């Protein structure tokens, strides 16, 4: 086929390169900046940033479901609790070192994700969301039942004892940063892998994906294994970074907070965006610790504003600008 006819139909190719390079620069700058935090910032901020990084992993686990499956999960607290309690229980009860705990927590998260996805592999949107709601709501009652193992309401303390002699705060921060980096890099690779391609096709044309070898059931299993694995990993890191696990940190509402974090970073899996999402949901409760109820109102409001901004306001503005350009072009 001749190139000439096609370049005519194809139109101008958008200049995608510049924006991409800019965000990559931002990502690298952010990582470098974070690397020096424990040496320049007060320990309180080091702690907050460590928590933000751990929460950012949780945010990523929500974003993965939305971006790759187009579904909402409000049961991520389940998988995060799995990872967090795996680390805490293994360390406190059996003296297992942290890296083994993380590996186990991640794997267990994955398995739980598959166990959840299997019965829901054929469910469509609303049915799946309600199933995740039920999943999220059943966490506290499970944690509060086996008190001997889970420590009941008080939970379990997690000691930052990865490297002997290094202050706990510094260990916690670098573990969180390292964990975040691993997830972000893995997700960047995943996007261009054969599964990333398959999922993004399935999201728009499920039947086409099926006809080329990726049925809906596989999509579900894969997305939830991935998301729950990330959530389990994030939970393990969170347990280490916050030095404690308790049922209060893993209620259904914490899933909703993660969703808020995911919305404010526009479901992005890019490092700087995800970090911002994690920071947002970590910082606000700290700053407003005396006005707990305000946090929910602000979160709800922010979620609304961001959704409005990007679904209603910006498209309107773009259309207006295009109309104006068209008019100028003619006049």
């Amino acid at each position, binding site marked *: *086929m001749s190139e000439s006819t096609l370049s005519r139909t*194809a139109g101008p190719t958008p200049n995608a390169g510049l924006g991409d390079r800019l965000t990559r620069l931002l990502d690298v700058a952010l990582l470098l900046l974070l690397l020096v935090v424990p040496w320049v910032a007060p320990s309180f901020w080091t702690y907050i940033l460590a928590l933000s990084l751990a929460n950012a992993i949780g945010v990523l686990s929500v974003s993965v479901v939305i971006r790759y499956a187009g579904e909402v999960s409000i049961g991520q607290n389940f998988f995060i609790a799995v990872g967090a309690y795996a680390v805490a229980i293994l360390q406190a009860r059996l003296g297992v070192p942290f890296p083994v705990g993380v590996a186990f927590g991640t794997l267990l998260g994955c398995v739980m994700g598959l166990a959840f996805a299997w019965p829901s592999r054929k469910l469509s949107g609303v049915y799946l969301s309600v199933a995740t709601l039920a999943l999220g709501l059943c966490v506290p009652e499970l944690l509060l039942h086996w008190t001997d193992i889970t420590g009941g309401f008080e939970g379990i303390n997690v000691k930052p004892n990865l490297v002997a002699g290094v202050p706990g705060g510094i260990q916690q921060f670098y573990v969180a940063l390292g964990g975040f980096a691993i997830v972000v*890099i893995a997700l960047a*690779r995943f996007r261009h892998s054969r599964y*990333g391609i398959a999922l993004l096709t399935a999201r728009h*044309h499920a039947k086409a994906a099926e006809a080329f070898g990726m049925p809906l059931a596989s999509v579900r299993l894969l997305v939830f294994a991935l998301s729950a694995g990330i959530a389990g990993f994030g939970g393990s890191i969170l347990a280490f970074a916050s030095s404690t696990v308790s049922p209060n940190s893993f209620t259904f509402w914490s899933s909703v907070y993660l969703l808020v974090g995911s919305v404010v970073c526009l479901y992005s899996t890019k490092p700087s965006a995800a970090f911002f999402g994690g920071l947002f949901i970590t910082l606000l409760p700290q700053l407003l610790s005396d006005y707990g109820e305000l946090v929910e109102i602000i979160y709800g409001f922010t979620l609304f504003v961001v959704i409005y901004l990007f679904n209603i306001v910006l498209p309107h503005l773009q259309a207006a600008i295009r109309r104006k350009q068209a008019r100028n072009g003619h006049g």
Partner: protein
Amino acid sequence: MDMANHGAGLVAKEIKLAFGGLQVLNNVSVSFPPGVITGLIGPNGAGKTSFFNCLTGLYRPNSGDISLDGRALKGVSASRRARLGISRTFQHVALSPELSVAENVQFGLHASRKSGLADALLPLPSAWSDREESRHKAIEALSLVGLSHLADVPAGGVAPGTLRLVELARAMVGRPRVLLLDEPAAGLNSSETKDLVQTLRQIASRELVMVVVEHDMDLIMQICDVINVLNFGTLIAAGTPAEVQANPLVAEVYLGAADD
């Protein structure tokens, strides 16, 4: 090589399909041998797309048998059929606007690629070579339809007519055994259609089963060796382009449709 080595191709026997009270396919029996470009024509709503959906396993016929080279496909899922080499394009472009054009084409290799989940997440050397290779094949397929220069453009920013050709590239990139094309020329202008004819002739081979559904009669008459005519889910005629053109029944169906 003789014909026997190429097998029997894709054979459908007495396919019946109904949605509620609507009989969409009524006892359709056709065979699509390899090395032959078969046309499947019929007025709107005749059941052509539905028939493709039965062949690819997206619809389950109420009765009838489909086999590929003698292997029965009953109970074989759409995804497994893809692995057996059945590939297709869609009447309504079914590409992902988020992916680049080359990535969309790479998805055509999904069923044959071996790299697993570890490769998807970890920087393993085996994954690099798999990715390189699949991208290379995708760009090759894109050059066949003359679109290699668009490889890295997001599909969302490409003109709809061009996307049909990307669909074609995706369908043939995996060197399928069976290629089902649902209205490949819809939305193309006349010079693009001419190019398409050339491309289709180029990819036709002695091993390939190719079926083309199309409303553009010039294209059908040009490239098809055999044409089947479907009307209201019933096969009303089959034969060479000349035979079909001369068939009064076919003329009636098409003139009747034109009268409405």
